[in-house]
């Protein structure tokens, strides 16, 4: 990791073809820069382009134009992902594996040596409080335990930038509380967190800054403290989204 911004996005455009004639503009020239150690919440209604942004950062989707860089390294270079942890909204698991084995495999995939593998896996298991479940097969996990396992695999490489796509989706209040604590600890360790969500109350509690994405455009960017000094984030969001109808 260097002194460059954790994430810089410039002029990102992406169009999806839905039929031979019709296209949908998912992103229309998105510009975004994240500061080191902040929690940035990217908000927006369903289909606003949040997941597309994350997938482009991870080079899972190719943009039509524009660039993204992670700590100064172009996002298309796989080495840029060395400092990135990613938790998808929904992910499949190899149900026949134990949670611990899944994490070991994830550690091997990112090149953690055999000597360090067990130690790193134990570290993330402890950080996510997954000690009991890690010895069980993944197919027996609850939704909350699966979500925590996803976060655990994202923390294996000690990421400087953590990308979370709807991390609270399907979690019960205890799970949400636990996640909030984990994210707060990571922030204190200097990890930059980029969070995509439509659960405004949660974002209000943990994010430092928010951006509102609507129809592929970043219509608003503001400090959460500045917003909550006057109103609730939810009211602010509804006001901004409502004044920009589709």
């Amino acid at each position, binding site marked *: 990791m260097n002194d460059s911004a954790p994430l810089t996005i410039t002029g990102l455009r992406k169009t999806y073809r839905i039929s031979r004639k019709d296209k949908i503009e998912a992103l229309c020239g998105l510009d975004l820069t994240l500061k080191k150690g902040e929690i940035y919440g990217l908000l927006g209604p369903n289909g606003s382009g949040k997941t597309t942004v994350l*997938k482009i950062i*991870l*080079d*899972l*989707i*190719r943009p039509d134009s524009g660039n993204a860089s992670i700590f100064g390294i172009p996002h298309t270079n*796989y*080495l*840029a*992902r*060395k400092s*990135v942890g*990613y938790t*998808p909204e*929904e*992910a*499949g*698991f*190899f149900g*026949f*594996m134990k949670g611990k084995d899944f994490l070991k*495999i*994830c550690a*091997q*995939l*990112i*090149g953690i040596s055999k000597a360090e593998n067990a130690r790193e896996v134990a570290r993330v298991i402890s950080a996510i409080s997954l000690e009991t479940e890690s010895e069980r097969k993944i197919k027996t996990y609850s939704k909350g335990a699966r979500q925590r396992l996803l976060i655990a*695999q994202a923390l294996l*490489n000690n990421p400087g930038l953590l990308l979370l796509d709807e991390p609270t989706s399907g979690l019960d209040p205890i799970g949400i509380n636990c996640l909030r604590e984990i994210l707060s600890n990571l922030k204190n360790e200097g990890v930059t967190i980029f969070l995509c969500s439509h659960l405004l109350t949660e974002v209000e509690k943990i994010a430092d800054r928010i951006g509102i994405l609507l129809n592929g455009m970043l219509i608003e960017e503001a400090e959460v403290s500045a917003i909550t000094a006057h109103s609730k984030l939810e009211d602010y969001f509804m006001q901004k989204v409502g004044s920009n109808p589709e």
Partner: protein
Amino acid sequence: MGSISTVAKITVKELLFRIEQYAILGVGLLIILPTGILYLNDSLAEQVLSMAAATSPDIVQLPRDTLVSSMFLLAELFITVSALFTISMLISRDIQQKTLSLFLSKSMPRWHYFLGKYIGGTASLCITFSFYAVIIFFFVLVQSPSLLSTIVISTLFVILKLALLSALIMSSTERFLGWLGAMVAVLYYIFGHINIKILEWSIIYEGLWGDMLKVVYYILPNLSEVSSWSLISAAVENYPIHINYTYWFAKQIGVYTIGFLFIGYLSFKRKSY
């Protein structure tokens, strides 16, 4: 490079844990085992052969070696059908299960994932085939140990063919749907049969035509049963030309397998997931 072996290991584990794999193994055994028992039991074999001769007078005597060859061909057939299903679904299953984004979001180049999947898929097929081969090996060991080296060579050739077939399916599954990729492989398999015909014609026609056909035979990839036990022995014993198996090996693996994989990777590399 560690990530390639990790992806391969997960793929093998995942495939060997699937019930379909055991179903294929079971059905294959249901056919191979009775053939093997027939091969071992002299009176039973004679009885079946005399019954066959009674039904069709043309069959006066069925050489015992044909039974070994049949077992081998059946095993090969099963593994080929299995390859069509297994390899064509390798990546699309990861897309369906939503495990692909987890793999590709890691700090490894895409080709590591692609190659790991290929190696894992092919390895799982080879493990299944080796299981059949070991059973056939034991039958042959009891009855005619002199054939053992031929069985070992034939097994190696089938493994080579599986490597080529898997690469061929991988080359098309990303461009088309999984089943279409399998269809392309089936067509190619038929093409393999034409290839063996080319070998036969090259023997029949002498002079320039024969030489040209030999060149065509050596250049084209071969998925036909030339790798099977019966045809190897037939080729070695009866064919007037010597088949250069070292060349065949280099051609199949060195050129076509790598070539097909490269074509498959080019489309995989560009795709959004």
